[in-house]
């Protein structure tokens, strides 16, 4: 397979990246007992026009808006503003769990800490931008600073909910309609990729848009059709309000499509505002050594050290987690779709910290063009199933395990599983664990009208008639009526490739392989190659396990816990070091070609995790 050789570099500490767009660096800040993680984007000049704090959204929108907020921060830095985007306590890369007490109070404190960090860098003024529920937190943060005698210089409320209650109402509807989730007795509920505890619900219900202490100028950028009449009337009494709408919020929130016009409008709004005179030189920000490591905590409270790293020639970004006396191979987690290194609904953070707590070293990796990683020359951002994914993984592995790049276990989710399989074919790592692997897809180069990239070994091409049947909703019916021998015949005749192609590539390379799939993703394999999988499980270092109740996007707490537990179990089994320590909840799992076995989830399920899936 033609491919470039992995760079023989090692992980770089102090992972700042300088470019014509400015300087971006990860920072840990706030309460050292429970540090927050953020990204500081600084102008390329040696002075700045002020600071901007970005307050992001939560739930599924954390994942789908991640890249857009990165672009916004880079745009603001290019316009001369030192910009900090960060994760609230219990979200993203920051420490904590959403089930921790006083979470909403910690979110308010996080906004204040972010602004104070910019103060400490010498920003003459600090402004705030908030998206969705982040708009309410930003506005409250602005009012608090005003009350403390340090008013913010500007405020952008991007798709603000009218109130915390209105926000909860929308999330509640998402949970009910997308997941069939029902509220618990304590008013807790789940929405896609987020648990809202009873305490959070109580505190968020009290969250309102302040009408005092707002800056002289505020921009409201609302979604089309939003009814914000009452909110804008009240807020307009306190600030010079500009109200505009932005389009494409559904593609933004559902499909991570960047709303470029909205991003440009926010940057322009700041750019058109008068600069402080004279511009204040940046304080030691450029030379100050920000801590690139922090001690965070696994779900059971075990301390875990995390380090932000840049890897390979394409500035791949990752977070290395390790507990005390970490030994054995590094476990590399690669996400799917356009999810950043935190994984779908923060699954990778939970998994990495739990694995680190049990003595492993874990890397959560962003592939190129995704999350916080760099772009290759000519590469389009946010391309999943990209052919470059395998080389990215090879580069990252060479950097973190330079003496023996094979001494890794690669774990991939969805399209990340595909990338891991392609990488493993050339790296021959100790093992691969795939989660909700989707073997059939249309590669981005094919969508663009080109040929299939020759670097792909495990790609399962779909004949046009299969694609058409799927578009018409008839493919499932076909699977029901065509027996497995029929699919095998079609495979032998070269008409329909087997979905097991990727697994066969791994086994031919001698890579131990563990496949984990929810029923929805397993259906294609079982209908077309169930007996084949069972034979492979008997004759090769291979297993295929169906995780009952786990949907493709692992939207609920119990699904994410099932994945975390199942991966930990496979890793422990592969390394022969026993299984998870504190099983309390059984999640049915069926191993194809083997006996049924329960998969135990860690800890008690939090209230509100009563999702009907």
């Amino acid at each position, binding site marked *: 397979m033609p491919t470039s050789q992995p760079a023989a570099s090692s992980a770089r500490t102090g992972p700042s990246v300088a470019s014509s767009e400015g300087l971006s660096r990860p920072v840990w800040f706030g309460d050292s007992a429970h540090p927050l993680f953020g990204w500081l984007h600084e102008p390329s000049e040696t002075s700045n026009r002020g600071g901007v704090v970005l307050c992001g959204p939560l739930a599924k929108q954390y994942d789908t808006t991640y890249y857009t907020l990165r672009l916004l921060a880079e745009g603001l830095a290019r316009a001369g503003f030192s910009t900090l985007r960060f994760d609230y306590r219990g979200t993203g890369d920051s420490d904590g769990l959403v089930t921790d007490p006083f979470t909403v109070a910690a979110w308010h404190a996080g906004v204040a800490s972010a602004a104070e960090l910019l103060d400490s860098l010498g920003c003459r003024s600090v402004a705030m931008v908030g998206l969705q529920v982040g708009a309410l937190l930003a506005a409250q943060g602005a009012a608090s600073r005003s009350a403390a005698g340090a008013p913010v210089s500007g405020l952008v409320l991007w798709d603000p909910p009218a109130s915390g209650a209105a926000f909860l*109402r*929308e999330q*509640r*509807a*998402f949970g*009910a*309609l*997308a997941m*069939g989730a*029902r*509220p618990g007795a304590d008013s807790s509920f789940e929405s*896609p990729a987020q648990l809202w505890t009873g305490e959070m619900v109580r505190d968020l219900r009290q969250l309102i848009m302040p009408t005092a202490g707002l800056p002289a100028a505020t921009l409201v950028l609302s979604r089309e*059709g939003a*009814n914000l009449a009452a909110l804008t009337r009240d807020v307009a009494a306190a600030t010079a309000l500009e109200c505009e709408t932005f389009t494409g919020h*559904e593609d933004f*929130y*559902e499909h991570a499509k960047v709303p470029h016009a909205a991003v440009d409008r926010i940057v322009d709004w700041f750019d058109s505002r008068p600069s402080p005179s004279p511009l204040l030189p940046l304080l030691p920000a450029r030379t100050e050594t920000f801590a690139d490591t922090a001690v965070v905590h696994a779900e059971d409270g075990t301390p875990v050290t995390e380090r932000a790293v840049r890897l390979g020639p394409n500035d791949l970004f990752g977070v290395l987690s390790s507990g005390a006396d970490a030994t054995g191979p590094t476990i590399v987690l690669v996400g799917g779709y356009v999810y950043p290194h935190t994984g779908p609904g923060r699954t990778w953070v939970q998994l990495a910290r739990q694995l680190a707590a049990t003595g492993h070293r874990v890397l959560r990796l962003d592939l190129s063009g995704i999350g916080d990683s760099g772009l290759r020359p000519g590469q389009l951002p946010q391309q999943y199933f990209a052919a470059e994914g395998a080389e990215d993984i090879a580069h990252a592995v060479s950097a973190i395990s330079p003496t023996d790049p094979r001494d890794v276990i690669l774990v991939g989710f969805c399209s990340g599983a595909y990338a891991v399989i392609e990488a493993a074919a050339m790296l021959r790592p100790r093992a691969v664990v795939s989660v909700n692997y989707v073997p059939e897809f249309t590669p981005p180069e094919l969508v663009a009208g080109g040929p299939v990239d020759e670097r792909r070994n495990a790609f399962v091409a779909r004949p046009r008639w299969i694609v058409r049947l799927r578009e018409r*909703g008839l493919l499932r019916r076909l699977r029901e009526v065509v027996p497995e021998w029929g699919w095998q015949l079609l495979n032998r005749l070269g008409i329909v490739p087997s979905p097991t192609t990727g697994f066969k590539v791994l086994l031919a390379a001698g890579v131990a392989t563990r496949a984990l799939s929810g029923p929805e993703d397993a259906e294609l394999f079982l209908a077309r190659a169930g007996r084949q999988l069972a034979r492979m499980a008997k004759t090769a270092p291979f297993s295929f396990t169906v995780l009952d109740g786990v949907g493709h996007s692992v939207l609920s707490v119990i699904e994410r816990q099932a994945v975390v537990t199942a991966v930990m179990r496979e890793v422990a089994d592969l390394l022969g070091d026993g299984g998870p320590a504190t099983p309390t909840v059984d999640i049915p799992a069926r191993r194809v070609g083997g006996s049924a076995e329960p998969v135990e989830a860690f800890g008690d399920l939090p209230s509100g995790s009563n999702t009907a899936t």
Partner: protein
Amino acid sequence: MPIDALTDDTDLYEAGMTSHASVTVMLAIEDTFDIEFPERLLRKATFSSVAAIRDAVTQLTTAAPA
């Protein structure tokens, strides 16, 4: 699917409506009719077709006051 091709009974989810879009529809209806969908109606089926939505709104707007 073109909007002209939708009938009262067309399955809106099969026609491409996402869960996000169904929530947008729900909130717009609540605003327009000054109603609130109760817990029992927060189900995919309630928003699965124009006819189903109409039935739900009729039910809520004609319900006797508590």
